[in-house]
């Protein structure tokens, strides 16, 4: 097999969009994976194991520009997530203002340590002057309340950690 022959084979593979081919002749053994390694082993020679293909860029993604913008501070809940990843997280399904209780005078819906049932109201998120009751998706014990009363919350922000029953 010479360079010209190899080229012809490769061309044929590409023309026919063949992803992989193994060819064994008395003279050589050829394995080609397009986009992957090619193994080419002559019959006389001991098989050669080829190294993994060019690894994905080992460079860590260059960081986004941040020089004059405040570095995004790791959110509190990220840390919690690490420590407590068996807990269920109740996240804000809408954007609005978090209220722990139905009215300023009333007691909070739940406190840390309380047991809650699936479907039980945990808090209110006020959005566009509408009070939206947020229910627990699981039954369990409230381990942590992550939003403060009257605080704005964004979509997907973790509000409660619940240890499922």
């Amino acid at each position: 097999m010479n360079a010209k022959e190899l080229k012809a084979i490769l061309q044929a593979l590409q023309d026919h969009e063949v992803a992989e081919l193994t060819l064994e002749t008395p003279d050589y053994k050829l394995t080609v994976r397009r986009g992957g390694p090619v193994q080419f082993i002559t019959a006389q020679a001991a098989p050669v194991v080829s190294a993994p293909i060019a690894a994905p860029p080992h460079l860590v993604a260059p960081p986004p520009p941040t020089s004059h913008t405040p570095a995004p501070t790791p959110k509190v809940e990220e840390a919690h997530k690490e420590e407590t990843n068996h807990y269920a997280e109740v996240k804000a399904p809408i954007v609005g203002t978090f209220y722990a209780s139905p009215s300023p005078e009333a007691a909070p819906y739940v406190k840390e340590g309380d047991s809650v049932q699936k479907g039980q109201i945990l808090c209110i998120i006020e959005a566009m002057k509408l009070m939206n009751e947020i229910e627990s998706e699981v039954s369990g014990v409230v381990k942590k309340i992550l939003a403060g009363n009257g605080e704005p919350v964004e979509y997907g922000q973790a509000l409660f950690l619940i240890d499922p029953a």
Partner: protein
Amino acid sequence: MFKKILIANRGEIALRVLRAARELGVKAVVAHSEADSQSLAVLLADEAICIGPPPSKDSYLNIPNLLSAAIITGADAIHPGYGFLAENPQFAEMCRDYGIVFIGPTPESMHSLGSKVGGREIAAQSKVPIVPGTGILETSQEAIAAAEGIGYPVLLKASAGGGGRGQKVVRNSEEMATAFAQAQLEALNYFGDPALILEKFIELFRHVEVQVMGDGKGHVVHVGERDCSIQRRNQKLIEEAPSRLPEDLRQEILAAGVRLAKHVQYAGAGTLEFIVDPEGHFYFMEMNTRIQVEHCVSEMISGLDLVKLQILIASGEPFTLEQEAIQLRGHAIECRLNAEDYEKDFRPSIGKIETLHFPGGPGVRVDSHLYTGYNVPPNYDSLVAKLIVHAPTREEAIARMHRALGETVIEGPGLKTTVAFHLEVMENSFYKRGAIFTNFVSTRMND
């Protein structure tokens, strides 16, 4: 001036608005979906707020979340960018209801200009020519009668339609009956309504649009016109300013645009789209009641910052710029660099940006939300950068664009952009001599 603006958009236009706000000394909150939490606008913003999951309908089109985001961050105005909610009168109305300034025209302007029928009425009132056409036609006989009056070829269109669907070109009366039946069926299928209208069919035309700015009280100026004829499937790919129309025709179209915008006491930035046939007839198509992707070419030739002006006008600053004070200079071209594989019929292409290098030097402007390491998300449109050049003449602008494209590197595994397409256009002899109609890409690029 506003205390804080919520930017209800993403990509390059979110960055564009952020830049304008920053230069005006106004704080900005960037509202973003979960997919855009690492976008450049978010990273550069004073403040950012997540308003929903990746799909647009749940985030950038989620009116309650956007309004809540404005309310809880203390924003007193919302800039909608283009696309998404930019031309949604309900959204503008709800902003007003909640005491938040919508940076754009009034909901009433958007209502009346937003529909094809409304736009045609306003054009007629302000003596701006429109493509000859009919109201709803019941039968093919009615259509034949109308076509005789207008002159073949004509176009049957779904009354409820848009985007070219349910349209049939009819070249003579014999073809009408079949075409009418087919178009009715398509209209029913696509839009749930078989009603058809008929218009004169203009086959070969330039897309020319007039940029206007109004104060909402009847003062309107134009910032020149743009030629946006380089399109593919009704998507603009290259825009330039000024157009290459004869000067008297240019002035006529500019005057028509200003007349119409004055008629509706237009507020903020708007664009009046016209089609111009090879004989120099021009017809009003529609008005876009927002800033457009291609506003940059008008900025380059005028030296104005149209987004800053939008914000200033919306904030109630007196808009006193007179037409005579707007001096248009030189020629500007914009190439939209899309994450698409030009070789494979513009197939969308996404991926991570590993090597990024934008051109610089004289007369080159880049508007892009890309940065090295950024992942182009699959959820939104494919525009990744706008490359804009400005030079004293069109010929020099083309040479400059060619030079700038040659310096551009946007690379990542599997990522393709339309740089090669634009290089080809800049080398195209039809393009160079300005012989451009909207069929350019399909008819002039295989020579």
